[in-house]
């Protein structure tokens, strides 16, 4: 059994060079996420939560400090190693869904396997199972652009979990949704967490904090608190 945390930030900093000079997007961030946790991250715009998500999903590298995924220092890892981890271990859900609008729901979920060697039959079975988890199996042949916002986001979640991730990172997944759709999406995330998938939910919506078991608050690139929830 791997004793290392799933994700571990140690004194992580992220700085960007701008015309006005260097800007710190994150400073001195220390926390870790264990397998199967549900962690919410909140903060106002510019607080660094999107930067945090980019680092957690290995889309970006820290400027300083240590970032480990299952014990591996991913900050120093070659791009191909980071791509492999993203491919097999990390699922992502975005506020704007990022579906391929002209393709069917099933094809969008199958797109998750685009850079994997999964045999087509297995990929299809996994995609259908993922659609079943999000309650959209009956819409598999619908073209994505004809779906409602809530349905699109559930397709995006199905896509993210079609290859069972160890970490599911969600960036404002309910940001564009009405209350009913948002509730359905949160229910999907909670169901996935209950079967052992760690969820990192980044949102500015304080009402979603209660869905997680831990809450991290950020402001001006620094972590204000890391609080366990009852």
């Amino acid at each position, binding site marked *: 059994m791997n004793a290392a945390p799933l994700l571990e930030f140690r004194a992580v900093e992220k700085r960007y060079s701008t015309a006005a000079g260097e800007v710190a997007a994150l400073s001195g961030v220390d926390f870790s996420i264990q397998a199967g946790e549900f962690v919410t991250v909140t903060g106002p715009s510019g607080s660094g939560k999107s930067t945090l998500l*980019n680092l957690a999903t290995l*889309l*970006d590298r820290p400027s300083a400090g240590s970032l480990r995924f299952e014990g591996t220092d991913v900050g120093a890892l070659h*791009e191909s190693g980071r791509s492999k981890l993203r491919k*097999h271990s990390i699922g992502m859900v975005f506020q*704007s869904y*990022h579906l391929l609008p002209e393709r069917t729901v099933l094809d969008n979920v199958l797109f998750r396997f*685009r*850079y994997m060697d999964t045999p087509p039959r297995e990929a299809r079975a996994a995609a259908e199972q993922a659609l079943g988890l999000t309650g959209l199996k009956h819409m598999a042949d619908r073209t994505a652009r004809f779906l409602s916002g809530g349905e699109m986001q559930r397709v995006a979640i199905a896509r993210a979990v079609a290859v069972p991730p160890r970490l599911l990172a969600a960036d404002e997944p309910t940001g564009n949704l009405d209350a009913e759709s948002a509730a359905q999406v949160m229910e999907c995330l909670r169901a996935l967490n209950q079967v052992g998938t760690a969820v990192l939910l980044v949102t500015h919506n304080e009402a979603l904090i209660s869905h997680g078991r831990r809450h991290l608050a950020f402001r001006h690139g620094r972590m204000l608190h890391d609080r366990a929830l009852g």
Partner: protein
Amino acid sequence: MIAPWDKALWRDVLAGLKLRPGRTLLAAGAIALGACALTVLLAAVAGLQAHTLAITRVLGSHTFAVLGAAPGGVARERLQLGDVGLLSANLQGARVSAVRRDSVAVPGHELTLDMLSTDENLAAVRGWQLVDGRFLDAGDLAYAERNLVATQALARQWGWHVGQVVDVRDVPFKVVGIVDTPAAALEATALAPDIVVRDLSAFVPESVAPDWVGGNDKVAPWGVDAIYVRAGDDEALSKAQHTAAELLTPADGGVSHLSWVTPSTLAAGLDQLRHLVAAVAGGVSFLSLILGAITLISLMLANVQDRVAEIGLRRSFGAEPSDVALLFVAESLGLTLAAALAGALLAVVILQLGPRLPLPVQLDSWVFLGPLLMGATLGIVAAWWPARMAARIEPAQALRQT
């Protein structure tokens, strides 16, 4: 890495190209037009090359011709039998032959038969093969035998055979041979009509000509239309030509008006035609391909800009920068190869079914390979910059786009 045989890759390519159908069609159309023009150009060049070889074969290898007066013409000097003797005596190692052409109307037909008065050397000098019997010999010449050698086409058309006695303008001739003259197909060319032997031609001893010409006042019996000289190799040919030019220079030192037909003069004529074709078809091809390349680059750049979020998504699913670059290269290659193939096929249809072009064309594998290679090159060149841009897009930035 993405394998080129990956079905998903080509599905992505198709989806990518459908994003901007108007611009895709414009680029594909321009490239197809360029490929079509290029195919015609290559087919014409191949045809002209084959034609050069064929027409050189018609003249005979290591052979040149000196042409005298055209029928009724005064522009050129009259060649005479004496000139033939002069060249025979002075061109060591070369074989010399001469021909005079008299056209005879065939009673009951609108056809004319070319009666070619010649000597025993003509078939050997021009490298013709006998199909049956023999060619004229020294005895035919010495005794003015009324013997005749028919072209294969004439024998086939009129049913002549060796041993048969035929009447030509009420003069009986015995058919002693049938010869294959690979010339008639090239008669249409304006490059060297005087050296072409028409299908309906027969060879008779030049010593029979005085009797044979009879009332024909076209040329005096001692005049000839062409003298052919065959040398052992290219060097000997050049030397023989130089000597012949000196020998045939007018005695008064004036300018000679004889025409000289050599393999190089024939090739030069065809080269001019080839340059013309290259300029026209090459120009159309070049301009179309430039238009296609510019449209394609702009299409690929627009595709990259439109698909920044998709690129981010692909990266989030584990695509490496090289995978992203390859996707755009594949899109560009897919379009250019399909357009090049369509253009080449269109050219073939035009060349096969359309109006006959006033020049020979030949469709061989290079004719198809050329446009495809051009398409592949264009596809890679046009995709290079956009693909590089796409590969450099930061996934985190890309995914912020809606």
